[in-house]
C-alpha cells in the first residue's frame, strides 16, 4: 500500500474525494464549500471535480442545511454536511437532535439516515468564542447519533470512510488545531477504521489516560514527561469515537493500571469526562488506587485570543493530574 505524508485536513479532503468517486449518490452541502473550498479548505478541489450539483453551496441557514440533508438521506442520497464551526450548529440543533438522531427509533427502522455532519471544533487557533467551542457533550446525550473525533490524519481518513458508510447519522468532529499541526503517513487507498473502537496509542502500567482530538497529543507529551521525570508508566487511549464510546478498552486498561485521568477541552461540569469517570467507578472501582482525575476546560465560555491558552488543558495540567493520582 503506497502512503503519503499528509495533514489531517488533507486526509479528510482525500476521504471525501474517494467517497464522492465511489458513490454518485454522495453529495456535499455547506456554506462556502464550493468554489471557496470551505473556510478551512477541507473541500478544496471537490467543486472543480464533481460540479455544483454534487458540491452544493447552501444558503447561510444551518437548520435548512441539516433539514434538507435529512430529506436527501430519506430519499436515497448520502449527504455529507459541513457546518462551518461546531458552535454554529445551534440553529440546526433541533434538526440534528430531534430528527436526524431519532428517525430510525421513531419509525421502528422504516426510515434511517445515512448522513455525516462534519464540524470543526476546539480552541487554540485564536478564533474568538463561538469559533473555539468544544460542545460534544450536547450530542453525546443524544441516542441515535454517533459522534467521532479523530486525533490524527490516519484515523481521520479511516474513520471518515466508516462514518459515511454507516447507516446512521454521524457527527464528525474535526479539531481545528490538528488540521495542519503535523503530517503522518496515510495510505493512498481507501480504508476503514471501525466506529466505536478506541486505540491504545501508548502502553503503560501505572495510569490510564483517556483523551480524543488534539488532547491525545497533550496526553502523550505528559506521559513521556512523567516517564522521564518520575519513571511512571502511563497508558494513553485515544477514544476516537466519543459516542457510543468503547467502554471495554477503558475498563480493561484501568483494571491493569489502577489509575485513570480523563482529558478534554470541553467544560468540566457535565463534560464527557464525568461519564467516563462514572463508568470506571461502576465497572472497575475495586481496581482503583486513586480517584479518577479530570483535566478539562474551565466552566467559562471559551476565552478570546491570547487568554485561551489559560483555558486550554495541556500536557502540564495533565502531568499535575498524574502526580495527584500517583501520590494519592
Amino acid at each position, binding site marked *: 500500500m503506497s502512503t503519503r505524508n499528509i495533514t489531517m485536513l488533507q486526509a479528510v479532503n482525500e476521504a471525501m474525494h474517494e467517497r464522492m468517486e465511489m458513490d454518485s449518490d454522495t453529495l456535499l452541502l455547506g456554506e462556502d464549500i464550493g468554489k471557496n473550498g470551505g473556510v478551512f479548505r477541507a473541500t478544496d478541489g471537490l467543486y472543480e471535480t464533481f460540479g455544483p450539483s454534487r458540491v452544493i453551496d447552501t444558503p447561510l*441557514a444551518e437548520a435548512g442545511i441539516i433539514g434538507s440533508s435529512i430529506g436527501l438521506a430519506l430519499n436515497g442520497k448520502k449527504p455529507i454536511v459541513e457546518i462551518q464551526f461546531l458552535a454554529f450548529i445551534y440553529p440546526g440543533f433541533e434538526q440534528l437532535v430531534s430528527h436526524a438522531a431519532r428517525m430510525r427509533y421513531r419509525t421502528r427502522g422504516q426510515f434511517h439516515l445515512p448522513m455525516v455532519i462534519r464540524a470543526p471544533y476546539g480552541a487554540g487557533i485564536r478564533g474568538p468564542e463561538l469559533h473555539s467551542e468544544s460542545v460534544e457533550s450536547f450530542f453525546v446525550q443524544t441516542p441515535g447519533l454517533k459522534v467521532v473525533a479523530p486525533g490524527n490524519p490516519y484515523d481521520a481518513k479511516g474513520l471518515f470512510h466508516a462514518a459515511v458508510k454507516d447507516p446512521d447519522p454521524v457527527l464528525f468532529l474535526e479539531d481545528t488545531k490538528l488540521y495542519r499541526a503535523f503530517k503522518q503517513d496515510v495510505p493512498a487507498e481507501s480504508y476503514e477504521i471501525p466506529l466505536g473502537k478506541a486505540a491504545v496509542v501508548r502502553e503503560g502500567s501505572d495510569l490510564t489516560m483517556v483523551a480524543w482530538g488534539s488532547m491525545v497529543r497533550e496526553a502523550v507529551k505528559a506521559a513521556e514527561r512523567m516517564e522521564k521525570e518520575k519513571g511512571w508508566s502511563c497508558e494513553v487511549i485515544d477514544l476516537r469515537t466519543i459516542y457510543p464510546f468503547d467502554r471495554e478498552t477503558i475498563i480493561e486498561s484501568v483494571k491493569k493500571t489502577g489509575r485513570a485521568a480523563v482529558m478534554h477541552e470541553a467544560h468540566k461540569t457535565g463534560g464527557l469526562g464525568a461519564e467516563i469517570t462514572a463508568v470506571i467507578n461502576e465497572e472497575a472501582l475495586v481496581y482503583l488506587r486513586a480517584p479518577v482525575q479530570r483535566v478539562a476546560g474551565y466552566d467559562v465560555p471559551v476565552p478570546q485570543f491570547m487568554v485561551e491558552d489559560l483555558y486550554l488543558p495541556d500536557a502540564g495540567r495533565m502531568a499535575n493530574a498524574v502526580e495527584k493520582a500517583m501520590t494519592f
Partner: protein
Amino acid sequence: MTNRHQELGMSDEHVMEMYRTMLTARMLDERLWLLNRAGKIPFVISCQGQEAAQAGASAALDTTVDYVLPYYRDLGVVLHFGMTPEEVMLSNFAREGDPNSGGRQMPGHFGKRESNIVTGSSPVTTQVPHAAGIALALKQKKKEAVAFTTFGEGSSNQGDFHEGINFASVHQLPVIFMCENNKYAISVPLDKQLNVEHVSDRAAAYGIPGESIDGNDPLAVYDAVKRARERALRGEGPSLIETVSYRLTPHSSDDDDMTYRSKEEVDQARTTDALETFRHYLEEVSLLTPEGEEALRSEIRAVIDEATEAAEQASYPDPTTLMNHVYEEGNS
C-alpha cells in the same frame, strides 16, 4: 350540463372518493374524541374543519410516486395515501402494530414508508426542509414526482419554514408547500401571528407563486394543488398554497378553547363546514342522495367499529424491544 368537478377534469368517481376521504377523516376523528372522553385513549389532535383541504389536495397528488410530509392534523391526507383506520386506531391506542412508531409516538405523528408518508415529530414545521431535501433527490434522480408538505399558519413563523422554502426556491425544486390556515395557533389568533393578510403573501419573498384558497372548498384546493404539481413537474419550482378554514375543535383533547374564543364564533364557523357544504354540492350534481349519504356513513361506521375493536384487542409493544432501533441492529 357541466359542473365544477368536471370542469376541473375530475370524474364522478374521483370526486366521490375525495368526499369519502373527507367523511372518513371526520367520522374517525369524532370517534377518537369519544374514545378519549371514555378514558380509552389518552390524547386526540383533530383534523376537523380541515378535511376538505386535505382531501382536495391529496386527490391532486399521485400516491404511487409523490412523497407527503404531513403535519399532525393531516388525517385526511394520510387516509388518502394509504393509512387505514385500523392503523390510525393502533396508533391512538399505542399498540405494537401502529405503523407510525410501534406505539411510541404521539397520535397524529404519521409515518409509513410503504405509503410514502414521511414521519415527523412535535416541533412544528421541521418537515419543510425535509421536503426540500426529498425534492432535491427527486430532481437529481429525474423522477416525475413531487414532495408535498403541510403545516399550520402558526408554525409558518418558524425559521424552518423560511429556511426550507428558501432552499427549495433557490434550487427550483419540485415541492408543494401547503399551509392549512385554521385561524388559531392553539389559542393565539391570526392577527397576533402575522402582519400580512395571508401566509401565501410570503411567497413573494422567495420568488415563487403564492395562492390563498378557501379551505372549505375541496375542488378549489384540488385545482390549486394540481396546478402546483404540474408546475413542479415542468421544472418551474415550488409553490406556496394557503388553505383558509377554521379549527372546529379545541387544539387537542387537553385544551379548552372556550377560554380564548366564543361558542358563537365556533357555531358561526360550522355554518361553512365543508362536510355540509360539499355534501350539498354533491346532491346538487346528483352524485349523492340523503339515502346514499346514510349508506356511506354506515359503511364507514362499520369500518371504524372494526378498527376500534381490533386496536383495543391488539397487544402493547413488547418490553424487550425498548432498546431496539436506536442504531442499526448489531452496529453500535
